[in-house]
């Protein structure tokens, strides 16, 4: 069955294109996978306090904070951001942030938040809403589909606890966030209950390796522990 959004491509052909891309990715890219559980208590408490002061149109979502933390953490992880072309990896200083968006009637698309490295938290929130809105309305612009340098997939609150994404060529990494869950957590010798998200990294072994990838996830956790610095 081929159905069509207001101005988007036929959905069946979109699904087929995504399928071919994923097939090529798994055939060509030597993936490796890492994950880290990250305590979000500080980040979520900070967001709640911020949002309490804000009218609805100014509120920030946890998803925006996660994206911002990824962008900031990438400053110290140049081998995860860029393109692998013609047998070699070309890192990039700018971040063209792909965002995997599930369409409500099925299907997946990964539009791009352009120049995400130049956006503060509020701007990133706005850009995320815009691009997700356009994706779901079937009104993406050609600039929304320009090549990303890295992609994030965030399952959100209805999703599974963790996700390990398939890298979109010619990118070399995809960061995944599962659903935020309350978990028993040990820190500083104390047991408590915290809001925790499992962050994952699927990366191309031709561009990076486990040690570098681990450092990225550790940095991500540190950034999320001091959310006020992510503004």
């Amino acid at each position, binding site marked *: 069955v081929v159905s069509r959004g207001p101005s988007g491509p036929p959905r069946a052909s979109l699904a087929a294109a995504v399928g071919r891309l994923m097939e090529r990715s798994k055939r060509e890219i030597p993936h490796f996978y890492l994950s880290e559980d990250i305590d979000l208590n500080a980040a979520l408490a900070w967001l709640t306090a911020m949002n*309490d002061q804000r009218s609805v149109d100014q509120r920030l979502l946890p998803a925006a904070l996660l994206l911002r933390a990824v962008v900031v953490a990438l400053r110290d992880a140049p081998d995860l951001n860029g393109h692998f072309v013609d047998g070699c990896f070309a890192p990039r200083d700018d971040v063209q942030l792909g965002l995997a968006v599930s369409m409500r009637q099925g299907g997946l698309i990964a539009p791009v938040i352009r120049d995400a490295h130049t956006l503060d938290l509020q701007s990133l929130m706005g850009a995320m809403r815009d691009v997700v809105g356009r994706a779901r309305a079937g009104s993406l612009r050609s600039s929304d589909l320009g090549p990303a340098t890295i992609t994030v997939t965030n399952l959100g609150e209805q999703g599974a606890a963790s996700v390990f994404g398939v890298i979109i060529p010619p990118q070399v990494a995809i960061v995944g966030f599962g659903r935020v869950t309350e978990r028993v957590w040990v820190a500083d010798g104390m047991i408590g209950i915290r809001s925790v998200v499992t962050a994952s990294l699927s990366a191309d072994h031709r561009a990076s390796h486990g040690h570098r990838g681990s450092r990225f996830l550790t940095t991500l956790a540190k950034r999320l522990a001091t959310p006020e610095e992510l503004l």
Partner: protein
Amino acid sequence: MTRAPAELDAIVRAALADIAPEIDADNVAVNDNIRDSFDLDSIDFLGFVEALHAATGIDIPERDYRTVETVAACVAYLGRRMADGASG
């Protein structure tokens, strides 16, 4: 300002149709959990709360999101807030 429950019901359904056009908003059961039933994510729900704000002037704070997850609950909540506003 206060509004009749029937009017609020229509406003809530219009807000739902606004964020998820594929939903047959007129036929959503009043006690259906809209987040679960229609797989609304946090961006969708923020859009829903924004649409309600635009239509009623009531800004639902985040801490109350859990209490406005059905059409019936939204109508009751908005009615209560409007009555509070009118009397206070």
